[in-house]
């Protein structure tokens, strides 16, 4: 739909401004206190550079997993109708409710080396997930998937089903209709979901440290660096925080500006 010149009421602007200031102010605080002089030095440390690339890999892989699993899941929640649907919908939200550290523990119970599934993975395939990059991706996916699913679901319930009917009428199979009509119409929701889950995964700490541990080569993402720094060297922590903000700002501005939101 074309956005028209319907002026946005002043009340809305006021509310939005308060909301924005609320979100902005802490970052102003952060950048005020950050010891900028050591910024370049810290950011170019080899270990920080490794964390940056690890973070990007983990966040991107996890956003990708969310895409693959979240679209069908959101779709089913929106479109299907079966007994227990409510329960499924609530379970999908659980990883959001549980503090990430607890989620990480739950992941260990299930997929850790002694977990009820993990032990078979280990003994049958020799696969161990904890303390590997794959484990970090899994932990990040686990906490960010619900965000993706909800984003899809709330849009999918509002799709005009006559468009899908028209596609079927014109001979496209249901699966083709899904990919050529439904998905493109969900574009905004998918993009919002990617942004949500990517951002959530980038900042993921609790589940990662618990399930995947802090391995400098495999799992030490920026949030882990930040956390360790918080314990020992708060200035360094601030720099890493600012760095994360800058990375996500630049990625999100670029992505969303160019193709994430289509009005």
């Amino acid at each position, binding site marked *: 739909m074309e956005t028209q010149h319907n002026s946005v009421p002043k009340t809305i602007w006021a509310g939005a401004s308060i909301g924005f200031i609320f979100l902005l102010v802490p970052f102003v605080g952060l950048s005020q206190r950050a010891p900028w002089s050591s910024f370049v030095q810290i950011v170019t440390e080899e270990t920080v550079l490794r964390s940056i690339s690890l973070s990007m890999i983990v966040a991107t892989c996890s956003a990708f997993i969310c895409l693959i699993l979240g679209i069908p899941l959101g779709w089913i929640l929106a479109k299907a109708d079966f007994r227990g649907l409510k329960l499924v919908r609530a379970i999908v939200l659980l990883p959001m409710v549980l503090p990430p550290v607890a989620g990480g*523990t739950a992941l*260990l119970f299930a997929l*850790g*080396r*002694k977990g009820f599934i993990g032990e078979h993975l280990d003994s049958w395939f020799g696969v*161990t997930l*904890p*303390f590997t990059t794959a484990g970090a991706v899994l932990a990040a996916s686990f906490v960010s998937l619900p965000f993706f699913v909800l984003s899809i679901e709330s849009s999918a319930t509002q799709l005009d089903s006559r468009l899908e009917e028209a596609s079927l009428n014109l001979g496209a199979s249901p699966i083709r209709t899904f990919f050529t009509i439904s998905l493109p119409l969900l574009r905004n929701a998918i993009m919002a979901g990617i942004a949500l889950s990517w951002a959530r995964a980038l900042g993921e700490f609790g589940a990662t*440290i*618990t399930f995947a*541990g*802090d*391995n*400098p080569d495999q799992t030490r993402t920026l949030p882990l660096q930040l956390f*360790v720094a*918080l*314990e*020992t060297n*708060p200035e360094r922590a601030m720099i890493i925080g600012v760095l994360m903000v800058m990375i996500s700002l630049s990625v999100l501005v670029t992505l969303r500006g160019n193709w994430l939101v289509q009005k």
Partner: protein
Amino acid sequence: ESDSSLRVLAASSLTEVFQEIASEFEKDTGIQVTLSFAGSSSLAAQIEDGAPADVIALADEETLTRVKQSGRLTQQEEIIFATNYLAIATPIGNPASIGNISDFKGNITAVCSEQVPCGHLANELASFLKVEMEVTTWEPNVRSVRTKIELGEVDAGLIYVTDATNQVEIISIKGSESVKTKYPIAAVDNAKPSAKDFIDYVLSPNGQETLEHFRFGAPQ
């Protein structure tokens, strides 16, 4: 993995000192040391779940006992390599004029949660000194106590002497040295032979000197 590398899991409070010791050890032996820091109990959980590790160094003995039950530590004796005790820390200038624990009353104060070693120690200290300790916030670890003091958010708190920085003012408590926490170190089962070397290095005069430099107390 080659024998020339070693994985050490250490309690967060050991971060700086173990980084120092590890780099000295590397210089001496050429063995690469990979350090992972986390709260003692997280480390315990990781060990239980099979985290790859050769050496584990914790901030209290109880946690080590828990790790032993997991069966990944079969060594008979635990080796204490350092001790630590608490002091009052206040923001620079001590704005609330705190002199001892009884001054906590009516001020905003932070202490570790009773369930973590430093909080346990704080409670012991208070009962040893027979004072009532009024606490605003029970922090999950000693570093977050310190951070809140550094930021001036709390007027006073209890931290390990080893955690003192130049961002906080330290007020020592008379008699607090007698309420100590002990740091055990142990090699994990199936550890590389060099694990023993690392432990020995920590216990060696060189290692002990470094620990002392970071204000840790001697093992006994």
